[in-house]
């Protein structure tokens, strides 16, 4: 049974010219758990993962597997399996030959090729040229590459992108199973909803910097509940709320008021003589707290 090691990002920093892609990022990923690495597109997730894997050189800081940099691992594919994007293939090569090239490079037995293709459900398409693969099949082939060395650590960049519903269900079970075997699983996504059913921990970054770290449940308590209130005359309602010193934003279903107290909002509307058409308390969902954290909350 492969043993997962911890992934350690330590004060890692990357600048491309004048732009800072990743800024002083530090966190640890534990074995036996699925960790979601979340953030909007362009937040620096892929750059961070590429630094972890030695493909991009950090400007400063280190990213290691139990203290060892990727390039210093004695058997990299046996320690870490990574799937980065769905396009790293020569279109004229068959899936089996594609994997065969890298089993040879890593000194792994050729039998691993068939094994991993079966494992990801591509056994029937092993001899097909990758150029004819669908996006979902390419994702699975990328995953097959990651599994070649039966690694203790899995690093997957947006593995759910492009999968059909059946594939999504499959990969969720797959991630859970990998972690249950004691492996370290780090999986990135720009959508919390994509991974929230399978992750134990979340690491959230925005604009290259860490904004939240903790178990998935920590997202629930982070956000205060809001009141959703609507009126045929939103302007008058808004004026009344403003007068009482409440802040709010305009959402699709009404005004989202930053207060936990529905009675207060009802009273204010009544006192101002504004008719209201709905009033309820909304417990912010995980997605809302996620969006609030990465700075893409409801602003109009």
């Amino acid at each position, binding site marked *: 049974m492969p043993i997962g090691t911890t992934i350690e990002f330590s004060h890692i920093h990357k600048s491309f010219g004048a732009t800072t892609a990743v800024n002083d990022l530090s966190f640890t990923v534990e074995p036996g758990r699925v960790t979601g690495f979340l953030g909007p597109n362009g937040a620096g997730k892929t750059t961070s993962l590429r630094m972890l894997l030695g*493909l991009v050189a950090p400007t400063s800081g280190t990213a290691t597997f139990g203290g060892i940099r990727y390039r210093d691992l004695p058997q*990299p*594919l046996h320690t870490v399996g990574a799937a980065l*994007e769905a396009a790293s293939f*020569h279109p004229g090569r068959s899936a089996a030959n594609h994997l065969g090239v890298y089993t*040879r*490079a890593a*000194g792994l037995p050729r039998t691993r090729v068939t094994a991993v293709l079966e494992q990801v459900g591509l056994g029937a398409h092993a001899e097909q040229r990758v150029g004819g693969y669908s996006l979902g099949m390419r994702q699975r082939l990328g995953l097959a590459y990651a599994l070649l060395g039966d690694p203790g650590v899995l690093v997957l960049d947006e593995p759910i992108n492009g999968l059909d519903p059946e594939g999504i269900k499959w990969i969720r079970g797959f991630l859970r199973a990998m972690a249950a075997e004691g492996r370290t699983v780090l999986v990135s996504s720009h959508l919390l909803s994509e991974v929230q059913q399978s992750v134990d921990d979340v690491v959230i970054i925005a604009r290259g910097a860490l904004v939240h770290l903790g178990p998935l449940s920590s997202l629930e308590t982070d956000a205060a509940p809001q009141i959703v209130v609507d009126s045929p005359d939103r302007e008058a309602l808004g004026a009344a709320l403003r007068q009482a010193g409440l802040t709010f934003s305009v959402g699709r279903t009404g005004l989202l008021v930053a207060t936990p107290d529905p009675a207060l909002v009802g009273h204010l509307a009544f006192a101002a003589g504004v008719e209201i058409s709905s009033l309820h308390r909304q417990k912010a969902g995980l997605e809302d707290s996620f969006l609030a954290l990465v700075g893409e909350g409801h602003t109009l």
Partner: protein
Amino acid sequence: MSSLLNAIGAEFAKILTTRLWWILALVLFGYIGLLAGGLAALFAGIQSGAISPDAAGTSSGGIPDFGTLPPLVYSFASSVGYVFPVLIGALATTGEFRHQTLTPTFLASPRRGQVLGAKVIALFVVGAVFGVVALAASVGIGAPVMNAFDVDPMLSDAATWWLIGRIVLAMGLWAIIGVGLGVLVPNQVASIVIVLAFTQFVEPLLRLAASFLEVTARIGNFLPGAASDALVGASVFTMASPTGGAAEALDWWQGGLVLLAYALAATVGGYAVSWKRDVT
């Protein structure tokens, strides 16, 4: 050491699992076969009197000296065919950038210098195999044609077999130059345009221009194509030079070293320019 051998094995697998290598080898064989067979027939025909010089349009210059016709015909393999190993070397390298296969490559073998070294070694062998294919065409077709016109194909001559060996070596070195070019210019289209423009147009013109003065001719000897011809020791280009080789050509081993220097300089330069950069 075993990781280098693994990396070399992977580079061979990359070449052999796509169709490019045998398509190029097939075109190389056809091209060199036609050229060597056709010109062997023409020159041997003139030499043996079977074709009159008037009909061939060479009457004004009298009968040219064809004392070394077989080496000339055989050397088409490299003097004309060298563009093929350059192409496969450049395509093998630029393809890694184009198809983003550097990512799985560097994940499996994080030591990048070793990967490039493995590519150089593997492509040298592939280039040498291309040399064998080209010789199968130039000797395999040229020799029987010359024989048919009663010109001795000199196949029992040890010098001919040395020539053949040097052609194989030159073709291997040209493939490394292709690898070097590919890392210097990772854009595949740009790389191919440079290969074709340089080998088919720029260098032949430079060699011709350089050959008019003795001092420039000496410099011209160090052009890669001229160095390759010096290594091989026979070429249709040196025969066609207007001063008839007034400036002494390089020795075969000097030509070989010059060619090797080009190959290594391009590869080492390309390592710094693109290979060790961030893979994004």
